[in-house]
């Protein structure tokens, strides 16, 4: 097990309190299970949390910074901070809420730092700095990235539209409405195992459509 250094005491490490005890959703429980694994030294579990929340965090940071070119760097920093501070996460709030708070604080710091920084002009940049800027531009809201995001959206919607009705209903109730398997089972009047299978098959169909785009 790794030797954990102490949390840096930053504001981000503080876990917001939700007040009274509240029931956890399945996703929150799943996140908490992954967090516990990270706390026990399983780095791979943190990779899954990054995969799960990367789009949400990058989107949030991009909105706050109003500078898409910087969003991924700041989002990356937020995830690194979250990893460092994860030992202090007790599960009093949803992991996502906690992560959001870290992302917001990291974005705020980035904005403050930007205000202190003199303006950069391309002509003043060294070759390596120029390369960094170009690298950043590749990652974010470039026209290509926006076009890809739109294409992904169209592809997913087309794939969902082509699904059999029972698979489409199940995946929409899960992904868009956020219902649990139990709730979907009640709504669709079928066993929970069937819901699980339908959602999986729907995702497989979407994945087959998406794969060429994402490779």
């Amino acid at each position, binding site marked *: 097990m790794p*030797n954990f250094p102490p949390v840096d005491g930053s504001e981000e490490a503080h876990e917001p309190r939700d007040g009274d005890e509240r029931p956890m959703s399945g996703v929150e429980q799943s996140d908490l*299970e992954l967090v516990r694994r990270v706390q026990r030294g399983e780095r791979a579990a943190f990779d899954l949390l990054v995969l799960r929340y*990367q789009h949400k965090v990058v989107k949030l940071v991009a909105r706050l910074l109003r500078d898409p070119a910087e969003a991924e760097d700041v989002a990356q920093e937020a995830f690194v901070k979250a990893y460092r*501070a994860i*030992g202090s996460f007790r599960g009093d709030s949803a992991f996502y809420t906690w992560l959001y708070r870290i992302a917001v604080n990291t974005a705020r710091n980035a904005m403050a730092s930007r205000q202190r920084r003199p303006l950069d002009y391309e002509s003043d940049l060294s070759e390596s700095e120029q390369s960094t800027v170009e690298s950043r531009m590749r*990652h*974010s809201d470039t026209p290509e990235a926006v076009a890809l995001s739109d294409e992904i959206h169209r592809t997913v919607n087309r794939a969902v539209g082509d699904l059999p009705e029972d698979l489409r209903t199940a995946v929409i109730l899960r992904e868009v409405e956020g219902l649990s*398997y139990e709730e979907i089972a009640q709504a669709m009047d079928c066993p929970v195992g069937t819901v699980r299978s339908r959602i999986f098959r729907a995702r497989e169909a979407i994945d087959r459509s*998406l794969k060429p785009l994402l490779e």
Partner: protein
Amino acid sequence: MTDQIREQISALLDGELAAGETGLLVRRMERDTELRRVFASYVIAGESLRSPGGVVASRDFAARVSAALAEGGVAMPVPAPERVAGMPQKWRRPLAGAAVAAGAALAAVLLVQPDAGRERFAGGRAAPPVVPAAAMMPVGGASPTLAQNQRLAGYLVAHGQYATPIGRRVAWSNALATDPGIARMPPEVAGQR
């Protein structure tokens, strides 16, 4: 890769996988890039269904975070201390605040009371002030030692908002008066500061 594992990934994403199955799956995913790709693809499908511009992170974002953690040698933090046994979370902060306030009040009493108490006692009009036994620091009788004064002054610096102005002033006066470093400082050196 079997459909069973992919179905487990789907259930994990929804928080519907049994806790006992999660560990093995996480370890499998750590070794298998295709399983991680599937997980990421399911996430993208969900994000995209929820909002048109929902997929914004670049393809290699997660890999870069992982590399940053590995290359930077970022170790994980110490797990948080266990909860205080039998004490609900919501009670801890108020109790801590009350303890700080009580401690500050006690410090102020100890600093101000001794003289006033002696005067009243000497006059025979009132009994000596009753101080709880637990509060009887080695203050009574002799003057407070340097260490005691410094400790009290430090305490008041940290919790100054709870202490009375008189208490703060007395603590500082005592600490400065008994500090040998200050006493030994020649006036010309003091003047340079």
